[in-house]
């Protein structure tokens, strides 16, 4: 338990080891640890950001989806309406067309009836004239009475 030169030796060794530690051990280890801490902090921040982004994206997706659904619904509704109007229009047009065709046909019929009647009258009057010609051949002048009969037809 004597104090001797050992104490000087120990002081020198102490200085040497502390100097070594201060120069070659502490800074690189601490630098590496701080770098890793920074990296982890960055990573965590990035993860936070990513999850935040994901949340936003999900919200936006939901929004867009509901918008699209609404749009689709409105499109279907419009289409239905349009289809109904088209059908209605077609119905009206068809009815109108049918009416027109019917009218046209009845007008034709009417016209043909009138023509036939006229023809028939002409023929009947011709026939009557022919008969009367035959009957009155002798005494009646055809040209003279034809004008008279013509007038009669016209009066009818």
């Amino acid at each position, binding site marked *: *338990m*004597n*104090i*001797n*030169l*050992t*104490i*000087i*030796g*120990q*002081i020198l*060794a*102490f*200085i*040497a*080891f*502390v100097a*070594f*530690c*201060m120069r*070659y*051990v*502490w*800074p*690189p*280890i*601490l*630098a*590496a*640890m701080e*770098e*890793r801490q*920074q*990296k982890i902090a960055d990573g965590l921040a990035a993860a936070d950001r990513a999850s935040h982004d994901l949340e936003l994206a999900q919200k936006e997706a939901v929004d867009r989806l509901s918008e699209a659904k609404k749009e689709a619904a409105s499109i279907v509704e419009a289409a239905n309406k349009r289809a109904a109007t088209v059908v209605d229009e077609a119905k009206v047009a068809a009815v109108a067309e049918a009416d027109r065709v019917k009218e046209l046909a009845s007008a034709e019929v009417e016209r043909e009836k009138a023509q036939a009647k006229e023809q028939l009258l002409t023929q009947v009057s011709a026939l009557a004239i022919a008969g009367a010609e035959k009957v009155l051949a002798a005494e009646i002048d055809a040209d003279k009475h034809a004008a008279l009969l013509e007038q009669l037809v016209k009066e009818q």
Partner: protein
Amino acid sequence: MAAAGQEQTVSDYIVHHLTNLTYGKLPEGFERYDGETVAAGGQWTFAHGADEIAAMGFNAIHVDSLGWSIGLGIIFCALFRWVAVRASAETPSGLINFIEMIVEFIDNQVKDTFHGNNKLIAPLSLTIFVWVFLMNLMDLIPVDVVPELMMLAGVEYQKIVPSTDPNITMGMAIGVFVLMLFYSIKVKGFGFVKELTMNPFNHWAFIPVNLFMEVVGLLAKPFSLGLRLFGNMYAGEMIFILIAALFSAGIFWLLPAALLQIGWAIFHILVITLQAFIFMVLTIVYLSMAHEDH
């Protein structure tokens, strides 16, 4: 245990275990253990026995303490340098992880206690903690193993726990004390003188009293630092030696001695860590006080 060819008492055994391997200068005219007389001019040699060590006085070196101390210091430096070279921001593994854990622990301790900006304190604390821990750890090697092996190799004494040598612990404490003085003067300048003379009684008439009290307080710090570690480790080592001596007391003592040995060793794991930690924390606290201006 038994020295060759002679009867050995328990007291011899203990003394043998507590004697350092000392290399020093014997004074002129000293009669050595084998009857030779030291020639003129003295003689540098390994000491045999307590008388020769006493005769050497200050001109001696505890080769074992200093050797183990420096060896352990080199292990510390090599180990931590190995890790420092490999440390990176990548995922640490195994040993690197363990070393980084120690470094982070020290860093937190320093940050908690020391609030200045000083690049020396943290590496100093790390060196102290790990080095003192390694020196204390030698205590857990069974007391007879290394000395017996050394005796087989022809070395008479071997004390393998450097921190049971006051030279070692006081050496470190003086290193810390010099740093305390250095930073006190550097940071406080004249304030340091004022601190020594004007506390606790702030009046010029009390300067001698203040100076006496403050200087005693200041000098007590390195002594408390160094002697606490020495005392604890010395006592621990002494108990290990006593337990080891118990093995020779007879066959009935084998089991109790073994149990005591295990129990004390387990308890000592706590003690050696705690003492290393206390030495480090007190170093930080003292240096922190040296930096604080009142």
